[in-house]
């Protein structure tokens, strides 16, 4: 598998690169704790008033927050930096080097960057999740765990596909940074399970930005709420989104002509 080898090599380079910027680690730790702190305060404020929210108990919501933090960390460490670099290269016409390499260009542009320190979020998220599961007395079946892990992977693929679609529009619109900022705003809504939002917003979040699939569904799996039907739906959507992303990317590359040409 040349693809895996390539990804591993870029991962190595990315990690080497990050070690040059130690200060980023400390800043990241600070950011993570501020985000976690405000999240926990919010959660407590809500549960001072009510005992459950949209059918979710406090430890269950804590689990959602854990997944939210894990997925967010992964997106910011592996997906977002690549897409931002791609956007910049499309705008400046420097994508040429990636396109003249004997490797799948989509793969290449998707694995070039890696922000190691963002993984602080992943670790923190895992701790939060562990705390939540302890409060739930670890009542999780093997099916829940499998459902959870598969939902995480599907969520990651969906978020990646979504980002790639948005980024590929840069082939036509050149400047799309603002659209990318939009993602972050919408993703923040994933802090809460999407079921608590009104229907229109819920479907919007699910289909426009696969937040539900990235956060709510994995958390649902762990808390025993995930039905096979939903899981299959997620699988289908993952495949569809990935295919669409691939098609848009290929069309975009065809359309690409280099800024200085």
């Amino acid at each position, binding site marked *: 598998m*040349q693809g895996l*080898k390539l990804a591993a*090599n870029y991962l190595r380079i990315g990690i*080497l*690169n990050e070690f040059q910027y130690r200060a980023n680690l400390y800043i990241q730790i600070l950011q993570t704790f501020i985000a976690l702190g405000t999240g926990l305060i919010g959660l407590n404020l809500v549960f001072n008033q009510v005992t459950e929210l949209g059918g979710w108990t406090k430890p269950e919501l804590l689990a959602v927050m854990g997944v939210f933090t894990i997925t967010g960390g992964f997106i910011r460490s592996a997906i977002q930096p690549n897409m931002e670099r791609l956007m910049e290269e499309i705008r400046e016409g420097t994508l040429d080097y990636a396109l*003249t*390499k004997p490797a799948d260009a989509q793969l290449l542009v998707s694995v070039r960057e890696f922000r190691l320190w963002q993984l602080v979020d992943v670790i923190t998220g895992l701790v939060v999740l562990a705390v939540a599961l302890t409060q739930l007395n670890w009542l999780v079946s093997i099916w829940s765990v499998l459902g959870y892990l598969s939902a995480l992977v599907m969520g990651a693929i969906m978020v990646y596909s979504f980002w790639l679609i948005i980024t590929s529009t840069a082939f036509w619109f050149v400047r799309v940074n603002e659209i990318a900022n939009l993602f972050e705003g919408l993703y923040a809504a994933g802090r809460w399970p999407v079921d608590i939002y009104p229907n229109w917003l819920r479907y919007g979040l699910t289909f426009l930005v696969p937040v539900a699939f990235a956060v709510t569904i994995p958390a649902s799996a762990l808390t025993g709420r995930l039905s096979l039907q939903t899981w299959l739906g997620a699988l289908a959507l993952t495949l569809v989104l990935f295919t669409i992303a691939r098609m848009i990317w290929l069309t975009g590359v065809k359309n690409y002509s*280099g800024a200085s040409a």
Partner: protein
Amino acid sequence: MSSVISISKLAKHYQVPEREAGLIAAAKGLFKRTYKTVKAVDGISFNIQPGEVVGFLGPNGAGKTTTLKMLSGLLHPTSGELSVLGYEPAKRDHDYLRQITLVMGNRNQLSWDLPALDSFDLQRAIYSIPLDEFKHTRDEFIALLDLKDLVQKPVRNLSLGERMKMEIVGALLHKPKILFLDEPTLGLDVTMQKRIRSFVAEYNKRYGATVLLTSHYMADVEALCKRVIVIHHGRLLFDGDLSALVEKFSAFKTVGFTIDTPASDLSQYGDVVSVDGSRVTMRVPKEKTSAVTSRLLNELSVVDLTVESAPIEEVIESVFSVKRETLE
């Protein structure tokens, strides 16, 4: 021998949005855009044989980079035929891409914050180069370019010239058969230009690679390329030996001579460029050179006489000043 690169009636036209300057024009552009067709490359044909080093010349905007981009598969031609090593570049077949390289003097591909060695490893992964072969090639290039002490330094700490050397090493690690070099010596000092030049020459010699090179420095072209292809306004202007180019496009020759006794009126022979003591330099129209020199020898007491072609820069300058209309 069959050609490695063959181009026939190749054209690339762009549609570019066009508008006048100013706010109102910009606002109009939101609703209705007018497009203008730019003929970046407009029907050029040439063939290149294996192992040739060809200088690809033309002023800015002549269509050199566009042609190189079509050759390396980045751009689809609007029309015409293009075949390199038997491949159609625009298909970007991996087997094709493995055999070529593209170096652009104004863009870098090495990781800015890491030593070049790390970036080289990445190239190895991208091109799936066997480890032994990779190490051998890498060390060979490092020695050739004298980079031993620099490969461990982060690229950002290198000088422009050192960085360019690293770029070239990185771009050649997979030992491509065809090199597309777009201004590889851009902005470098003379010594550095020479190093890069001799490296390219050495690579060409060792591996029999074919090189298509664009450069604004005529010294690069003179040192490396026997053959030059000149394009201008997207059209082919000249294809042949560098010496023939000079012959064809230099309208003047420089005649220099030393005279014993000062002559009264030298301007009757030609355009006097300088008089330095008894040494005179003048420009003479090419077709009149022999007539003028024999007159000089007969009518003046000339001690020695030299006839030189105009410097290559001057020739190129006169080629580049050709108007578009005269090419149509």
